[in-house]
């Protein structure tokens, strides 16, 4: 911007200033223009013009034939799905960048102390090379709900089964109204009473292999007798009656109740029969213990409306932590060793060195990682599309996703979509300012 033409008239062969050739003003602009031209055209046509056009478009109706002032923005703030989107954006922003940065920091510090750090770095860093769409597919397989299909629920199931075993007859039902839904024999029993606890909906392979033909219990003075059996024979049979071909169910716990309180319990034999001895008076009831019917654990519904956002954030962490670790690790290796050694010789513990020396020196790097993640998280689209099943998309949505959905999925609400995009852009402005400022500082 200094007048190059004046200096150019006196070329000094020893200390030649830059661009010394005598050129006219038009030519001096022609040169940078020829270098910058292609970039300028692309940036103007594909970025600057569309960005401005999007803002303008947000003041027009969806079909673009009527100027509607701020109506699209009114819609934006009164739409319940947009509210969910904003809420999810807040959750993402609050949780993901901080977690990524902290995990990256911890791993970067720890990984310096192991011999196989190169291998581990590749493993942790690798997901970054995989498309977020494929990441979504990967995690959707992990999150499948049935513990037999989804690895995460399978892992939790292993822990769960240790705590609480599933019952022997998870899906059995009472066979007749004589047994109520809590598996209590409805008839009051006294000494000599008999209880017929018939069950159905037991598949043949669930009947224990040592089961024998059930028998109608014989009344016995001073005792309550009964049978637990599979009240179903080929062809159907009569409900509530022990018939030929119907097997007793061994190993079932039966409780004796009086006034709703458990007074005794026993286990059925191979014919499904049980006996409570030493019974006097009446008013007893027999119940099959609820543990018999404990369902096997169905698995956490990761992809349901409640957990979908945390589930997606976990998938995101998987891809982003390696990046944070490598960038922070590079910052770490730039810290002079003697600074750390000096702190150690002064008697600082490892944690104090980390907290008081390493972290403050790393602050610029940590900020870069944190800001990068914020920008990345605000743009997230692929993970939502790939992980959230259609039925929970409205619970998983964010502004970036909703902008696309309203604009390009069926409705083609371009006015509304443009308003969402413009609102999203507003959230990017602080980062834009940060970016320009830090570039200025670096120069």
């Amino acid at each position: 911007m200094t007048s190059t033409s004046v200096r150019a008239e006196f070329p000094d062969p020893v200390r030649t200033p830059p661009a010394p050739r005598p050129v006219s003003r038009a030519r001096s602009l022609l040169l940078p223009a020829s270098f910058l031209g292609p970039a300028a055209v692309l940036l103007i046509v594909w970025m600057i013009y569309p960005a401005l056009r999007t803002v303008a478009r947000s003041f027009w109706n969806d079909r673009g034939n009527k100027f509607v002032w701020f109506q699209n923005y009114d819609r934006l703030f009164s739409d319940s799905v947009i509210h969910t989107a904003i809420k999810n954006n807040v959750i993402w922003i609050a949780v993901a960048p901080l977690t990524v940065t902290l995990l990256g920091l911890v791993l970067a510090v720890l990984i310096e102390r192991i011999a196989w750090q190169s291998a581990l770095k590749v493993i942790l860093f690798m997901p970054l090379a995989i498309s977020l769409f494929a990441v979504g597919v990967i995690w959707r397989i992990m999150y499948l709900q049935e513990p037999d299909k989804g690895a995460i629920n399978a892992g939790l199931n292993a822990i769960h089964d240790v705590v609480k075993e599933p019952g022997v007859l998870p899906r059995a039902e009472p066979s007749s109204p004589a047994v109520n839904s809590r598996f209590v024999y409805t008839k009051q029993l006294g000494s000599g009473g008999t209880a017929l606890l018939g069950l159905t909906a037991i598949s043949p392979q669930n009947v224990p292999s040592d089961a024998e033909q059930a028998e109608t219990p014989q009344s016995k003075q001073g005792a309550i007798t009964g049978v637990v059996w599979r009240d179903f024979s080929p062809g159907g049979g009569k409900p509530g009656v022990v018939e030929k071909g119907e097997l007793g169910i061994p190993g079932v716990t039966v409780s004796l109740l009086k006034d709703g309180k458990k007074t005794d319990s026993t286990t059925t034999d191979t014919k499904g029969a049980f006996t409570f001895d030493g019974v006097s008076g009446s008013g007893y009831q027999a119940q099959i213990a609820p543990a018999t019917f404990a369902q096997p654990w169905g698995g956490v519904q990761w992809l349901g409306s409640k957990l979908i956002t945390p589930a997606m954030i976990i998938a995101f962490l998987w891809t982003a932590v390696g990046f944070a670790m490598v960038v922070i690790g590079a910052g770490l290796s730039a810290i002079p060793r003697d600074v750390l050694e000096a702190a150690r010789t002064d008697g600082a513990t490892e944690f104090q060195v980390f907290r008081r020396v390493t972290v403050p020196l790393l602050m610029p790097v940590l900020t870069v990682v944190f800001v990068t993640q914020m920008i990345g998280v605000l743009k997230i689209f692929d993970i939502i599309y790939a992980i959230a099943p259609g039925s929970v998309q409205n619970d998983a949505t964010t502004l970036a996703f909703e902008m696309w959905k309203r604009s390009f999925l069926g409705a083609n609400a371009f006015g509304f979509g443009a308003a969402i995009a413009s609102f999203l852009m507003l959230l990017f402005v602080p980062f834009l300012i940060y970016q320009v400022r830090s570039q200025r500082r670096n120069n």
Partner: protein
Amino acid sequence: MAVAEVRQPALRADPSESIGHRIANAPINLFLLLIGILWLIPAAGLFVTSLLPPAVANATGWWHVFSKPSELTWSNYNHIFHNSAITHALVVTAEVTIGATILPILIASLAAYALAWIEFPGRDYAFVIVVGLMVVPIQMALIPIFSLYNTLNLYDTVLGLILFHTAFALPFAIFLLRNFFAGIPRDLMEAARIDGASEWRLFFKVVLPLGLPAIAALAIFQVLFVWNDFLVGFTLAQDNTPIAPALAGQLRQFGTNLDVIAPASFFSAVIPLTIFVLFQRYFVQGLLAGSVK
């Protein structure tokens, strides 16, 4: 950008660590081993699933195969390579990736050279605009570009996708290359100018060769970014989409079509993964030089 001066990828062990010190770190080793395994499981799950016959893949979890390894088969891959929709999408992905890597690097290095070494009025403002554009999200351009492409017949074309990716790659590419070019010693440039080299000659004979490390980093970055794109291809193409958007429809019956979506997803990840592992060094350099995109 604060780490722009860190050039060392730091993927190396510290030789000063003694054996005794390492043994004392047993808990750390164990913890990191656990982390490493946790990190491998999801990708391993996709890979194993992709090798299961359809009936098995959709009925049980992939880890059951460890008790029945004989079930593993490449037949799913055989099927997807005979599925013309998927092979076409892979070809489109490759075309778009090649185009949208070469083009922005060419255009950006020209612009970066001008911003670093040619004096012209408003140069600093031009660079500030470039830096600002780095933050603009794709969502800001989708609606007008969609309309524009429909008018210009660029919708659903490889060229349309290449141009879009090129434009959105430029701000970061110009930023990275301009800062790299600006680091070339002034003496070198001036010596060439005294010798009477034109700006074009300077650009091709001095700046480009010296800028190769940055260009390599950028190229790898861009290959991964474009190959892995979903949003742009999904919005601006229909029959000529890259692989990720081509698989999007499969998601609607997820759980019953794992024999298609698992191998296709895994295969689509193999190429960027290979490039990443081979050129990791450059990739890390690119990240460190401007970890803001």
